């Protein structure tokens, strides 16, 4: 393939990565923004979403779309409930102390991952996409007979991949409406601004925290259900997305949702594009170093404004 | 001889001027009190002297040396000591260790007296000598204030800055605090932020009045008592 079509293909793959990453990262960012804690087990909630999706689709027969739709609803709910339970049993009891929360969620990471290994096993398992029609893509060339359109071999995507991008956009818009236009969002933002004040105004902060923690995990699980027909479910699949969403959240500015989305698109696209042309390991090294240096020299994130 | 002076010292917080263009001079050996209504910029001002707060503009000269650019720990190393307005001790460590931490820093430069001797002396002067092994956080609030003063004493400072030291002390403890300050006079230069006017009148050689971040008046206790501006801004309200 020539450079142009190759780049278009890489961009498309990058856009899928960016869409899923944006969901993952927004989940992490909401939790950090409102509760001021870093959830290291976020990647495992993602993994659980994928594994539960596999489990549900393998239970329900018939057209793959049936199982998938059920998974799309049940997996986030189930994972959200598990997360809310973890919040209730663990985080609440250590009073959301930032450092102890990190240690506890590292523990949670191992527990979820190893329990999945014990039950689900070490194999990667596929989930069939509800629909999956191949779409060939055209490319333009300014050849001898002027400007012409043609279909390069290998330049294609699928309806499902495009649907993933669309679904991610819809969910993100939905979240934005939830946070800015609803009473629930107002309560969450009030809790974020001042926990004690919220308590004084009769907001049940503990419940809000459990719900927020559950919501963050549910979003990760949803992202996983969307991606699992493309990627397969595996008990170790949470590691890379966790790292990437850390990168995104930090570069976008901790707790800032618009910044997070911009960063997700930037990182997701460039990860896809860089990985096609360069060694993915080198890309990851550069990305992790970028996070470290952003935290050291621009802790408000690349897009955030410095607080004076 | 002037031990400490400032020129045009200013602190702005996001558009709000807390301390405005203060020229200040403190001779060696003096006990100086800084008074003023709440929010007059007293704590900010002494915070800038010790380096705890970074000034927006102006200079601080200590012992003939421009220390404006020096970080707090270096200024302390030059012979300042600073006690916090809100008690700041090592609550999980013993009383002895709290003071020893102050003393050890001094002994890094001169160990003419042992650390333990310094600790014993300092705790003795604030009447805490029977509490060496107690955990500092278990002390009563008043005793914690005294411990904080003992930490300052153990540093053998040439300039001792105390931010509201008598807040929360009993009448008896305040009495011995006044005695302590008088016993330090001469060797140690003292800069005192104080709300308790009895303490100020009993100890201070000279008083500086801050109001809205500026020096409103400066003079002996008698002069300040007689100053109409001060009466209006501060004492009048306090005495009313």
């Amino acid at each position, binding site marked *: 393939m020539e450079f142009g079509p190759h780049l278009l293909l890489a961009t498309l793959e990058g856009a899928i990565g960016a869409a899923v990453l944006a969901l993952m990262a927004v989940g992490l960012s909401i939790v950090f923004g409102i509760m001021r804690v870093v959830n290291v087990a976020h990647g495992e909630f993602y993994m659980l979403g994928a594994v539960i999706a596999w489990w549900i689709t393998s239970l329900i027969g018939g057209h793959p779309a049936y199982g998938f739709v059920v998974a799309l609803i049940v997996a986030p709910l189930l994972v959200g409930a598990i997360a809310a339970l973890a919040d209730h049993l663990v985080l609440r009891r250590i009073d959301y102390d930032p450092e102890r929360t990190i240690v506890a969620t590292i*523990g949670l990471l191992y527990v979820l991952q190893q329990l999945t290994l014990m039950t689900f096993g070490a194999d990667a398992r596929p989930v069939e996409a509800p629909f999956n029609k191949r779409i060939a893509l055209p490319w333009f060339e300014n050849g001898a007979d002027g400007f012409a359109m043609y279909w390069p071999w290998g330049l294609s995507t699928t309806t499902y991949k495009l649907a993933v991008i669309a679904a991610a956009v819809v969910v993100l818009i939905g979240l934005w409406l939830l946070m800015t236009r609803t009473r629930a969002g107002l309560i969450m933002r009030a809790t974020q601004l001042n926990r004690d004040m919220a308590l004084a105004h009769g907001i049940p902060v503990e419940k809000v925290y459990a719900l927020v923690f559950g919501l963050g995990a549910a979003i990760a699980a949803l992202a996983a259900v969307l991606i699992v027909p493309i990627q397969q479910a595996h008990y170790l699949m949470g590691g890379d997305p966790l790292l990437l969403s850390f990168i995104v959240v930090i570069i976008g500015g901790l707790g800032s949702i618009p910044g997070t989305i911009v960063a997700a698109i930037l990182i997701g696209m460039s990860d896809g594009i860089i990985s096609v042309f360069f060694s993915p390991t080198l890309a990851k090294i550069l990305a992790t170093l970028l996070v470290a240096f952003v935290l050291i020299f621009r802790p408000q994130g690349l897009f955030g404004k410095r607080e004076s | 001889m002037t031990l400490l002076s400032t020129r045009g010292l200013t602190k702005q917080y996001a558009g709000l001027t807390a301390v405005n263009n203060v020229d200040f001079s403190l001779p060696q050996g003096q006990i100086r009190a800084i008074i003023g209504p709440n929010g007059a910029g007293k704590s900010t001002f002494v915070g800038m002297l010790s380096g*705890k707060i970074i000034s927006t503009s102006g200079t601080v000269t200590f012992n003939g040396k421009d220390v404006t650019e020096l970080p707090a720990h270096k200024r302390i190393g030059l012979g300042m000591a600073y006690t916090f307005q809100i008690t700041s001790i090592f609550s999980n460590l013993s009383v002895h260790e709290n003071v020893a931490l102050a003393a050890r820093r001094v002994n890094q430069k001169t160990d003419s007296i042992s650390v333990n001797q310094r600790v014993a002396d300092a705790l003795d002067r604030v009447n805490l000598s029977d509490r060496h092994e107690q955990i500092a956080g278990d002390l009563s609030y008043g005793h914690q204030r005294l411990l904080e003063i003992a930490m300052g004493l153990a540093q053998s400072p040439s300039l001792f800055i105390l931010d509201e030291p008598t807040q929360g002390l009993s009448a008896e403890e305040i009495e011995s605090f006044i005695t302590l300050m008088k016993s330090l006079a001469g060797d140690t230069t003292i800069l005192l932020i104080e709300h308790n006017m009895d303490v100020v009148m009993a100890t201070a050689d000279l008083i500086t009045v801050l109001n809205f971040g500026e020096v409103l008046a400066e003079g002996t206790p008698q002069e300040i008592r007689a100053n109409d501006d001060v009466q209006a801004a501060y004492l009048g309200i306090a005495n009313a």
Partner: protein
Amino acid sequence: MSTSSNTKLKALGLHLSIIAVLAVSFLVLPEYHSGIIARVLILAIYAMGYNLLFGYTGLLSLGHALFFASGMYGLGLAMQYLNAPPLVGLIAGLGFAAFVSAVIGFLALRTTGVAFMIVTLMFAQAGYLTILLMGEYTRGDEGFVIKQSQRMIAGFDLSHATNRYFVSVFLFGFCLLIIGWIVQSGFGKTLVAIRENEERARMLGYNVQLHKWIAVVISGTMSGAAGAAYALLFGYVGGTFATVQYSIFPLLYVLLGGAGTTIGPLIGALFMFYLIDISSEFTSAYLLVAGVALILLTLFAPQGIAGMLRKRVIRWLP
């Protein structure tokens, strides 16, 4: 004043007794267990290094595997490709770990709290990925073996079980005495002061940043020493030792044994190693134990075993 020198003597006595007990244990331990103890002692050195920073200075790093691996690869690469003798390899390992921790400390200490945790995590991850990237020399996750013929010091075979045991006891004892000495020195007490109340320590005239940096360098170098010793005694160098998991292990050991105590790291490493060893006989998901332990410790026993001993029974515990 007699109390403090008294405490120092008691602490020294405690440390020497532990070393003596470890040395004598060899006579009664079955071979399988003496092999495990040798490994545990090296990991305890790692945890002691970690503890100086986490337990005493109050800085929670999630990236110490980088320092462990620096020591390991410093020694391993020098021996493998430059044919360095063991002692030169050890110096290379220590030197490299010291250098890496000096640089990382300088950068990471511009942050505090959660940001410090993430920055150290990211640097360690970058280090691990670099090991993978340079797979041609490092052999990546697969690692490489240091030949037995190279692991000899003047005819003394380090791969022999008996020798290996006593060398581990010697190295562990040496590090324990160093740590014991550091934490009872003025420097160590200043670190504790920084942990307890950084602002107050600064306003007593201590250069807080410098103290923290020195703590990172000592901590990183000791972790590197453990990595180098591990490679030398067990003859294996590999990328797995640079993974996040190996940054979590010392945290786990120290939390379990007791943060900010000299004997906590040994207690924690011993318990945890056996716990994982036993559970790995039953399931491949043996890390479940680590996860459960982390959660339970955070919830119910943040002081760890030695921390509780100090609070309830032995007040003078260093």
